[in-house]
């Protein structure tokens, strides 16, 4: 009995001296870089920085987190261009960097170099050498919602290499694409070189109210399919998981891109095919 009492006291003593876990609430400032180079189009690089968890987000802060004073360079095998800062109130961030001369080419590699004071952040990517081909798009009536229609897509791919396709849609009147469900496929799942699926629309931002997954009648939409390398596809998959913000699922929540330096950054090339269609 004495031994048990001694052991109990020892336990209480140990527990009182227990050094608790690190509170983990350390915030490290980082740049957020989203750079893309599309075939036959000018590269676009958006740079912001992160904020502490307790920061109040208002229009002033949204302006402040945009990085406007960086030097952004894109280097191809035979050209280098310093990107120009563009102001556009229709998109966020309202300021971004865009080339005026250099355009993406199929199968080419490109380097990105961002310099901010004495901080240098660099990444390298390539544009896949195959542009996706939308074979057809069509709509079907929905049993539940008669005002909207379901979108279907058929893709064709007869190339031997493994391609990663991501799907997007946007109303013709809006500038930015939002991902669909399913969000991506790779061509290993194609049957007889064809892939056929329904595409459901998602909201543009995770702070918007969820809307219908179907498409309103008589409103023209643009459907885009982008081929990118595996690294970029993995990044955007992880990004989708994080943006869904489902705390029920744990695991590693670190988003790792391909831009080195004090940043979370992705620099990726895409070869895309877009089509306009109106659900009637």
């Amino acid at each position, binding site marked *: 009995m004495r031994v048990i009492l001694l052991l109990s006291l020892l336990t209480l003593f140990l527990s009182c001296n227990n050094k608790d876990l690190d509170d983990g609430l350390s915030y490290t400032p980082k740049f*957020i870089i989203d750079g893309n180079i599309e075939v036959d189009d000018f590269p676009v690089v958006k740079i912001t920085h992160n904020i502490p968890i307790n920061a109040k987000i208002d229009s002033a802060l949204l302006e402040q987190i945009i990085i406007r004073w960086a030097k952004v360079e894109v280097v191809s095998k035979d050209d280098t261009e310093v990107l120009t800062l563009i102001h556009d109130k229709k998109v966020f961030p309202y300021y971004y960097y865009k080339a005026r001369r250099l355009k993406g080419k199929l199968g080419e590699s490109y380097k990105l170099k961002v310099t901010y004071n004495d901080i240098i952040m660099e990444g390298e990517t390539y544009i896949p050498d195959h542009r996706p081909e939308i074979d057809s798009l069509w709509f079907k009536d929905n049993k539940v919602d008669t005002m909207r229609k379901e979108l279907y897509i058929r893709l064709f791919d007869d190339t031997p290499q493994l391609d990663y396709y991501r799907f997007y849609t946007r109303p013709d009147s809006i500038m930015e694409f939002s991902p669909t469900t399913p969000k991506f496929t790779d061509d290993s799942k194609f049957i007889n070189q064809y892939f056929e699926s329904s595409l459901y629309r998602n909201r543009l931002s995770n702070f918007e109210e969820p809307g219908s997954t179907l498409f309103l009648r008589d409103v023209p939409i643009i459907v885009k399919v982008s081929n990118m390398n595996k690294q970029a596809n993995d990044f955007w998959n992880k990004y989708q998981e994080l943006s869904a913000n489902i705390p029920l699922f744990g695991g590693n929540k670190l988003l790792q891109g391909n831009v080195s330096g004090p940043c979370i950054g992705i620099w990726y090339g895409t070869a895309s095919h877009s089509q306009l269609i109106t659900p009637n």
Partner: protein
Amino acid sequence: MYIIVNNRTLDTPMYRLIIIMLFSVLQSFGQHSKERLTDSLSNRKAVQLEEIQLLKSIPRRNHSDQSIRMGKAEIQQTFKFLGNLDPLNAVRVLPGVASGGDLNSGLYVRGGDNGHNLIQYNGITIYNPHHLFGLFPLINPEMVNHIRFYNGAPPAFLSGRLSAYIQMQSAQERFDSLSNEIAFHASILNADFAIKKKITPRFYLEGQARKSFLNLLVWPFINKKNPTGYDIYDLNINLYYRWKNGFTQLTSYQGEDRFKMQFNKKTVYQKMDWGNRLVGLYHQQQLGEGHELKAGLSQTAYNYKLDFDYNSSGSNIFLKNNVSSLQYDLKYKFKRQHGLEVGYIGSFHRINPVDIHLQMAESGQQLNHLKQRILQHHLFLQTQLNIAEHWSAQAGLAFVKYQNNDYNDQKVQSVWNSWEPTITFSYLFKDNYSFKLGWNRAGQHIQNIAMSATSLPLDFWIGGGAEISPSTQDQYTMGFYFLNNKQRGWELSAEAFYRDLKNVYEFNGDINSIVEKNNVVHSLYQGRAKSYGVEIYAKYVSERLQSTTAYTYSRAFRWFDDLNDGNKFPFKYDRPHQLNMNVLYQISEFWKLSSNFNLESGLNYTPEVGRYFLNNNILSEYGPYNSVRMPLYHRLDLGVSRNFTTGNRIKHEIGLHIINVYNRANPLFRLSHYEGSLDEGGQYIHTSQKDLAVLPFIPMFSYSVRL
């Protein structure tokens, strides 16, 4: 104390009363020999008895091994959650068993995962031992006679898990007409019916059927926006036949949960069904010279099915998890050779860990279709050795051969052979005091992977294969025990443990990766773990009061290459302080009070430390893995019940059980919410963070009747 009375004439109420008196007499003659007892009883001539056989006292613990036995009475004394008694609640009040939080039915023993426990009913493995969130017990308490719990060095006939073995056992004694019983129980959530019937002096049947009616009484009144449905049913029938020197038992169980939910303006429809199916035949035979043969054949299966339907348009995501096992046991015990027991357990497992089928438009895709066919052989030898006057040892050795064929794109075969030794040294002093040292090395080839922050039916089983090595463990234990085999008084114990685990697994949290990678194996993180702690337990029984207090101080840490930059991090269920107090007080012959108080350090979680904008979304930036602890968890549940009898023999019980008496909000996880717009008209984002607590103050009435 177990007494077997076999008399074909004991069928009237008067004889029942006499038998109860006989029980009392036997208890008062506790120290008498079998012969003297028999003489004493036969002199009374109240009834003519064919046979009275005093078998033995069955203590809760014993001084030689590291198991704890909880009898029916002890199970009945645990708190009724939502008016229902759960046999596994008797395990939850033991030290070293951490809870996963409210509505998490998992058992986290000594820093291990929920899937590191083997839970069996009549020797048959149960792969998912709970209905949803532990709202209802899987096995009805009416069908459980006792539970045996092993968390130290287990005997060698137990293999395949790292943390604990929990064996629920239905009655296996000789039955008489007193055993005949009909019971009906109802609460607002469910009703169940149980029957126990002696068919012939040798043949006995017990059965139970249960159905919940939440779809009728609960769901129509809540969550009208997103219609929900959830109900369960289960059926359990056991048959028992006693031979001259042995018995045969047939066990069968089938249960199912059915859940459905509509959301997103009723355009997305989700349906989940899951359930267990168990069937087993067991035979035990006493052979000459005290030898004993045990043989069993059983089949168990757990099936989970999810159907995610978009817009009723024929576009669906189907997900299935299936596991089934066929097992054959043969054990032979040489009673006179140090209780030497040898045996063989062979099992064949069919596992489809995560089987995903995407149906988009007219074409379908089979995305994740790993199929596993596993053959496992387990040979063992177990003995008890008396080393010196006060010293004894329980030693065992198991050999396990595991052979898995993975069928995915191609067949891949993996084979492992392992030796699993186990030993417990005991030093007995002053009759009731003992000191024990234990060590065991264990392996686990079939893993349960938790997909989420709580224990869900979605959690899947997967066998070791080319890319999943078996988990292994070395465990060291040391303890002091004061055991009291009397009906009343104190029982005390203090035990320390240290565990070193290799190849433990966590799901990477990325649902997309399962779809993308075509093989669920690539969605797992692998690492190692350590845990240590001290467990203190006190039990006090008096005429009116029965109470247990369990306190544990323990720590559990992990190291994974893919998490936290390979640095040490605490296990999610690392809860340094765990205190559980369970009290049952008999106020009078009719009134009974019960309470359960649980206090535990909060769960660990990965904190948000920052935010950033990327591609039109706002994302959280996370700090070190599992580096922050939720607030202290504590909850008090109280119950009161009133018994009364009508007619000659109909016993009624009306109960009121209150969950979370002081309405403590114990968060299960932390949730961030964003709302805003980046349109030209006005840019703003409202962010909020709240702790999601799921179990508020709930009063629940229940009613039972027993014939």
